[in-house]
């Protein structure tokens, strides 16, 4: 018997996952718990195990597709039972149809997806699985725009669904895959004399009380404006009409002269992007710079390093810095906080959980070392190493990346002195570390070469003032310059 397997909720609050790769192919025998696919969610890659013993009858999405949790990703043929006859399918399908009008076409998509030949070819060209694309054309027909949007990792249907509930502004950011020059899509009535559109589109326009000549057109046919059904829909909803339609034939789009390659903006990359934008556009950043002379720390660490090695721990400067920061946070708790605008309160955290930004092949990840205040330098060191490794080989769990109260980013590992780190929102401060190096330091009228650590502290100026930032940094520097003080902590 055929058993449909839906993409499980692979992590708390995860709405969708990208199928990174299939570990089985159609026709393969699988045993219960055998991993069948690798799925990448916002932050981690997980293996999805088979729930049954059987054979893989059908794989519903190609690798690279972003699939909402709950969608059937694979159908198994369960051992011992015959494959379900086609008419059984016919029996169950009409039920699903009842759910919603536009869904009916796609719920039946197993037997057929409606799309013109040119769109089918485009889908092959772009490597898009047509059956997995939700059509936005009349009655759910898959359009060129749908395929392009799917190729860019943006499901237009999902965007459309949001259109219904969200105000127009949101519609624009989610629905427009950012490729469309803004000029074509103002909400102003286009007011043309003549518009080309399919009869069903005209019908839709009438139904929605929209003058088709007013709907902004992104496409042209024979030099005439051509309006699609989704453009009408969006215009009717007051959205930035037609934006969802990706650059279509005839729509002028500027490409780089020397050509370009594109890659999908999704998965971890998109998550990073969203978070960075949210942080940068929400929290007014101020970055404070200073440099700590750390000759003593260099010496201390060199000495302790051997002892650590004996205990199989690689001792870097990071644990010292983290300890110094935590000690300073205790004196300036406002930097260990979160602003909850809605509730109109600033939450000052009692935990000292320090996140460490780690560059991985897939992008930036921030594993969190919990309760740094309660752990020895050696413990912190070994935890940092372990988490960083897990982040790099992507075996890190969601929990290990949650609960941070303050973040450290060690861009200096690659080079440079100062930077303007972006706060790991909704935290309110982040410390960036420059490269530890010999630099000239003026002391008592003399310039000498000292080992120094440049520091860049970004703060959310809504919560923290510049004076506090400076005082906090001074405190951190004091601990770093005189590491013995950490013994008192």
């Amino acid at each position: 018997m055929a058993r449909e397997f839906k993409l499980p909720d692979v992590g708390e609050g995860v709405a969708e996952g990208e199928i990174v790769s299939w570990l089985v192919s159609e026709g393969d025998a699988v045993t219960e718990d055998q991993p069948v696919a690798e799925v990448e969610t916002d932050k981690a890659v997980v293996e999805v195990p088979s729930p049954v013993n059987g054979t893989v009858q059908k794989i519903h999405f190609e690798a690279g597709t972003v699939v909402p949790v709950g969608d059937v990703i694979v159908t198994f043929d369960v051992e011992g039972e015959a494959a379900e006859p086609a008419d059984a399918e016919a029996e169950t399908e009409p039920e699903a149809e009842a759910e919603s009008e536009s869904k009916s076409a796609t719920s039946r998509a197993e037997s057929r997806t409606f799309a013109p030949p040119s769109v089918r070819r485009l889908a092959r060209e772009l490597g898009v699985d047509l059956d997995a694309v939700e059509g936005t054309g009349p009655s759910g027909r898959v359009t060129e725009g749908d395929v392009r949007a799917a190729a860019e990792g943006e499901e237009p249907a999902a965007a459309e669904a949001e259109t219904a509930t969200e105000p127009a502004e949101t519609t624009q950011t989610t629905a427009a895959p950012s490729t469309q020059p803004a000029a074509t899509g103002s909400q102003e009535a286009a007011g043309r004399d003549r518009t080309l559109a399919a009869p069903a589109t005209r019908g839709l326009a009438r139904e929605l009380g929209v003058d088709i000549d007013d709907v902004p057109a992104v496409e042209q046919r024979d030099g005439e404006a051509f309006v699609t059904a989704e453009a009408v829909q969006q215009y009717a909803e007051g959205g930035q009409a037609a934006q969802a339609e990706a650059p279509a034939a005839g729509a002028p789009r500027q490409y780089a002269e020397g050509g370009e390659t594109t890659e999908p903006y999704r998965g971890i990359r998109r998550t990073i992007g969203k978070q960075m934008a949210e942080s940068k556009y929400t929290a007014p950043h101020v970055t404070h710079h200073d440099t700590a002379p750390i000759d003593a720390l260099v010496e201390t660490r060199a000495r302790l390093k051997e002892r650590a090695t004996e205990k199989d721990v690689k001792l870097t400067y990071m644990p010292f810095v983290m300890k110094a920061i935590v000690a300073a946070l205790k004196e300036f708790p406002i930097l260990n906080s979160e602003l909850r605008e809605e509730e109109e309160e600033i939450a000052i955290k009692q935990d000292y959980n320090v996140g460490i930004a780690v560059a991985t092949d897939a992008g930036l990840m921030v594993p969190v070392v919990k309760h740094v205040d309660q752990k020895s330098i050696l413990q912190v060191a070994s935890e940092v190493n372990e988490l960083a490794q897990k982040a790099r080989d992507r075996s890190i769990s969601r929990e290990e990346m949650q609960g941070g109260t303050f973040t450290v980013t060690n861009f200096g590992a690659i080079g440079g002195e100062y930077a303007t780190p972006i706060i790991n929102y909704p935290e309110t401060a982040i410390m960036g570390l420059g490269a530890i190096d010999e630099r000239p330091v003026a002391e008592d009228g003399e310039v000498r070469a000292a080992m120094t650590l440049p520091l860049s502290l970004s703060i959310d100026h809504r919560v923290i003032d510049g004076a506090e930032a400076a005082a906090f940094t001074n405190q951190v520097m004091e601990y770093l310059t005189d590491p013995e003080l950490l013994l008192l902590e």
Partner: protein
Amino acid sequence: MVVGDVSTGTEVAVVGAGPGGYVAAIRAGQLGLDVTLVEKDAYGGTCLNYGCIPSKAMITATDVAHSAGNAEEMGVYADPEVDVGEMVAWKDEVVEQLTGGVEQLCKANGVNLIEGRAEFAGNDKLRVVHGGDGQGSETITYEHCIVATGSKPIEVPGFEFDGEHVLNSRQALAMDDYPESMVVVGAGYIGMEISTVLAKLGVDVTVVEMLDEALVGYEDDLARPVTQHAEELGIDFEFGLAADSWAESGDGIVVTAADEDGETTDFETDKVLVAVGRQPVTDTLNLDAVGLEPNEDGRIETDDQARTDVENVFAIGDVAPGPMLAHKASKEGEVAAEVIAGEPAALDYQAVPAAVFTDPEIATVGLTADAAEAQGFEPAVGKFPFSASGRALTTGEGEGFVRVVADEDSGFILGAQIVGPEASELIAELALAIELGATLEDVAATIHTHPTLAEAVKEASEHALGHAIHTLNR
């Protein structure tokens, strides 16, 4: 390599120059590939030389005469004199013009043409044996090969084609002198088309069919008007009889047919045409040498890119699975060439239209209402009779109807069946609708020229939507 072999290298070798092969070769040439097309007989294959084109030429010519002689209703009294010899010569000219065109198009697209029979000599080589004595052979080394060897008529045991008494469709279409009477074995589309031609030329035709109806595979209400009209033309149908044997008798022959109980019936006639179907041609090719084997149906299995189990060998047209139709062969030819050129092509069509050029014509595309239901759709069916079509009546052909099958929910058009005048032309609009994923409303809201037969397509779509103007709604 045998002595005297000339060896040529090519990127794409195409075997067979029918509508599958020559289209593949031209497309491959257009895409900048180095192509060699090998044909053992005539450019254009079965379709242009012995099938679609000659049969349609004869169908039209005999129809012109028949119509002219049967238009008293319109006040036309005529008894056209038919010179069969000239008619056949005209048909041959048409064929010549078209096959000559194919040859020219191939050359213009840089296709190397080689005459001879090709067979595999390993999985990167074809040996081409030239016709006649002492003309030797040559070897073609290829990177990709497209097999387009087509099909040939099936022979009924005991009825070996001799071109004199026992004919196949090709031989029947080549006759330039018609007998008084003929038995046609098989009431499939080829048998029915040629029977109609014969009857219109005044030949006394008896159709012997093993099954108990004509045009099996087509819905009853499509086949019925054709059988009825054929009977009016004087064609006798003998259903439930299988051709068994034949013998010469006096000037003519006697064809013996048996029913399922073995009871036999004799038919005295001049000649017998055997049209019981066609079988793929795989025996000219030495398929073994490339590691391929025909499946149970005698076809070479292919995937949705027309590729066989051997990576660089493709098979298209009648020799590959699917309906034996010229346009399906051509589509596969295009796709195979594009795939070889590295394009993202695939055989992903939704439907293959088919036409029967009888009187009246039948044409179908996509799903019937029953098939749609079996696939889980809830079919919305709209029908428009030609008796309500102004244009049909003005041509004197008010028989038949257009039926459109759509998905009730979404309105997507899933299929159509037409029987009546110009059905073969009318089906194109609906084939396009199906491929585009057009809805009933799209077709219904499109203005159709008045007065035309095509309006019936619009009216049928409106009927399915419940608002046809010129017929009562369901």
